[in-house]
C-alpha cells in the first residue's frame, strides 16, 4: 500500500526510544521505595527513627540511683525530671552500661554544681508565671533571710532533692508557706465564707481554734518575724489533724539560724552547726527535733510537762568530751555545782577515814552512785569476788575459798566467821 513506510517507522521508533529513555531515567532518578505509601521515600521514615536517644528518662536514672530517686520523689521537686538539672545523660548511661570504651570517664560525668541562675529559670518571680507556682524575688528573699552576699546559691540552704523539707504528701500541697501570704492574692478577706471560694483550701485563722497557743506565741520573740504558716502548713478542708510542715525540724531551724559565710552575722542569732550541740556522733540521727528540746520556750507554749531527756542514751560516758568544749551550754539547764555532785577533785565528804569500813552499807543502798567515779567492776578490784554475793553463793563459796584463799574473805568477815557454820 505504502511505497515508503520507513519515515513512519522512524518516527514511532524514536517515540518508543524516548519513552524507554524517559522510563529508565525515572527509574534512576527516583530513590528506592518512593511513592510506596504516599508521595515520599518510605525509607526516610526508617532513617528518621534510627537516631539515638539523647535525653534520658528518669526511670533510667532510677535503675542505679534508687536512693536519691526515692528521696527526690517525696519532696516538691518530685515532678522535675533528672535531665533538667543534670543534663541529657546519654554519655553517662552508655559509659556505665556498655563496656566498649568509646566514651571517656570525663565525658560521662554529669554536671552537679547548680548555678544560681539554674534555679531561677523556674523560680524567678515573673508576672507571667502561674501564681500558685513558688517564685522568688531574689532581693526580697535575701533581705528576709538577711543574706548579705547576693551571689549566694540556693543550694546553700535548699537541698535540690528535698527543696522545702515537706513531710506530708507533697503532691497535695499548694502553697509554699514562706513565700505566700493571703494578701499577695487578696486585697482583703473574701466577703463570703472561706468555704465558698471555689478550689481554694479552706483557711481559718489559726487562733480560731488554737487561741492559747497563738497567745503564747505572740509574747515570744519569733512572732515579730515569722507567722504560724512558716512552720505549720494549712489545714485542708477534709482534714482534722492539720498538716505540719516539718515543725521544729532541725534542718528547718538552721535555714535561718545556721552560721554561714554569706549571711548577716548578728541577726537572726546564728549558731555553729553541729559544734553547737557538740560532736554529731552523740546525737541520735533520728532526732530531728533536737532544737525544740532546749528552745521550745522561745517559740510558743508546748506543754513543758512532756519534755523528754535531751541527752542520748549513753550520755554518762559520752558527755566528757562534749563538756570540755561547751561547759557553758551545760549550765543553761544544769546549775554550776551539778558537776561537783559527781566529780570532785578531793574525796567526797562522805568518804571519811573510816570509809573503808563504812562503805558497804551505802554501796548496798545505792551502787550506781559509786559508779559516778568508780568503774563498774571496781568492787571486784579489791574484793576479788562478786559483791554483793550472788544467789547460791553459800554452796559455791567452797571453791572460791580454795582458789583464792581465806584472805579474800577476811577483808569483810571476821576470823571466826567460818566457825559460825563449820
Amino acid at each position, binding site marked *: 500500500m505504502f511505497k515508503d513506510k520507513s519515515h513512519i517507522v522512524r518516527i514511532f*521508533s524514536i517515540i518508543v*526510544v524516548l519513552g*524507554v*529513555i524517559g522510563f*529508565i531515567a525515572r*527509574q*534512576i532518578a527516583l*530513590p*528506592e*521505595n*518512593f511513592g*510506596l*505509601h*504516599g*508521595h*515520599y*521515600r*518510605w*525509607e*526516610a*521514615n*526508617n*532513617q*528518621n*527513627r*534510627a*537516631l*539515638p*536517644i*539523647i*535525653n534520658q*528518662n528518669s526511670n533510667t536514672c532510677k535503675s542505679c540511683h534508687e536512693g536519691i530517686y526515692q528521696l527526690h520523689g517525696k519532696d516538691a*521537686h518530685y*515532678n*522535675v*525530671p533528672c*535531665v*533538667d538539672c543534670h*543534663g*541529657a545523660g546519654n554519655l553517662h548511661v552508655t559509659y556505665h552500661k556498655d563496656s566498649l570504651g568509646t566514651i571517656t570517664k570525663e565525658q560521662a560525668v554529669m554536671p552537679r554544681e547548680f548555678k544560681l*541562675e539554674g534555679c*531561677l*529559670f*523556674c523560680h*524567678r518571680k*515573673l*508576672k*507571667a*508565671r*502561674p501564681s500558685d*507556682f513558688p517564685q522568688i524575688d531574689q532581693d526580697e528573699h535575701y533581705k528576709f533571710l538577711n543574706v548579705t552576699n547576693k551571689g549566694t546559691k540556693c543550694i546553700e540552704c535548699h537541698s535540690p532533692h528535698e527543696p522545702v523539707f515537706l513531710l506530708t504528701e507533697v503532691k497535695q500541697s499548694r502553697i509554699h508557706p514562706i513565700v505566700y501570704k493571703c494578701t499577695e492574692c487578696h486585697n482583703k478577706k473574701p466577703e463570703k465564707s472561706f468555704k465558698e471560694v471555689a478550689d481554694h483550701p479552706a483557711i481559718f485563722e489559726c487562733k480560731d481554734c488554737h487561741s492559747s497557743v497563738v497567745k503564747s506565741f505572740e509574747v515570744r520573740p519569733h512572732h515579730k518575724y515569722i507567722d504560724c504558716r512558716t512552720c505549720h502548713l494549712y489545714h485542708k478542708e477534709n482534714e482534722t489533724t492539720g498538716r505540719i510542715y516539718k515543725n521544729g525540724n532541725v534542718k528547718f531551724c538552721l535555714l535561718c539560724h545556721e552560721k554561714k559565710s554569706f549571711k548577716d552575722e548578728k541577726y537572726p542569732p546564728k549558731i555553729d552547726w553541729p559544734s553547737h550541740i557538740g560532736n554529731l556522733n552523740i546525737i541520735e540521727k533520728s532526732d530531728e527535733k533536737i532544737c525544740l528540746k532546749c528552745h521550745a520556750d522561745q517559740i510558743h507554749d508546748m506543754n513543758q510537762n512532756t519534755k523528754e531527756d535531751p541527752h542520748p542514751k549513753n550520755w554518762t560516758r559520752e558527755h566528757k568530751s562534749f563538756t570540755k568544749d561547751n561547759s557553758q551550754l551545760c549550765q543553761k539547764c544544769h546549775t554550776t555545782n551539778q558537776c561537783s555532785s559527781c566529780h570532785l577533785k578531793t574525796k567526797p565528804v562522805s568518804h571519811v577515814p573510816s570509809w573503808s569500813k563504812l562503805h558497804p552499807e551505802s554501796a548496798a543502798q545505792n551502787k550506781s552512785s559509786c559508779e559516778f567515779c568508780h568503774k563498774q567492776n571496781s568492787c571486784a578490784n579489791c574484793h576479788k569476788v562478786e559483791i554483793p554475793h550472788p544467789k547460791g553463793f553459800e554452796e559455791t563459796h567452797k571453791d572460791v575459798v580454795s582458789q583464792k584463799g581465806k584472805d579474800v574473805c577476811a577483808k569483810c568477815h571476821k576470823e571466826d566467821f567460818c566457825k559460825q557454820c563449820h
Partner: protein
Amino acid sequence: MEKEEKLNDSESAKMERRQFLRLGLYSAAGVLCGSFFAFGKGDKDIVVDNYEDLLKYDWGFIVDTTRCIGCGACVRACKVENNVPESYFRTWVERYEIDSKGEIRVDSPKGAIESFQSDNFDSNDIVKAFFVPKLCNHCYDSACTQVCPVGASYESPDGVVLIDKERCVGCGYCVQACPYGCRYIDEEKGIADKCTLCYHRIHKGEAPACVNACPRNARIFGNLKDPNSKIRKILNQRRYGLLKAELGTNPKCYYIGLDKEVK
C-alpha cells in the same frame, strides 16, 4: 568517470552514515537496556517499618498554657536531643504581657532557652501575663508538605510531619509556606529542618524530649487513635484552642487556655 566515481563515493558515504546511525541506535538501545538492568531496583528486599502497624497511631500534642512556667527546660532539652543549630529553635516559649492600657508585648528572648529575666512592663501595671510554648503543629492538612517540589516533606502514616534529609534540596519553599514559623534552613547541612515530635523516641516508648523535660506537665503527648490514652481523656474534658485555625491547616497541637492575643 570522475563524476561517476564521485557519485559512487557519495553513495557509499550515504550508506556509511545510515549504517552508522543504525549502529548508534542499536548500541544506544543496548546501553539503555543494560543500564536498566544494571541500575534498576529489581526486587531487592528492604527492611522497612510495617506500614499497617504505623496506621494504629496518630500522634497528638497538648500544650497546657495554664501550667507553663516558662522555665525553658523543653527548649534546652530539644536543642541537645536534636542538635539544633544555635540560632534556630524547634520549640520555643513565648511570653505575652498585657498592661492596663491594653498594650500587648510578646517576647521570646533566645527562644527562652535561658528562661526570662524580668517583666517587660512595670509588674504592678501588668493585668495579664502568660507563657505559650510553641512547636510544630503537625497539621493534618499541612501547607509545608504540599509545596515541597521534591517530595522531601511528608506526613508519616502515624501523623507526624517529617523531612527526608537525603531528598531535601534546601529550597526553603516549605519554610515560607509554614504559617507558624516552625521550620528553618539548617545552613550547615543545607536542608530544611523542623520538629519531628522526636520520631526516634516515640516508637521506642519514650516521650518527646520536651515532654520528658517539662517539670510541670504542661506538655502532653499521646496517641489520638487510642480512646484510653491520656491525651484523649484530656481532650474530652478540657476546652482547647487551635493556632490559626482559620487557615484550614487543621493543626494537631491543642492549646489549653489559649488567649485571643496568641496567634
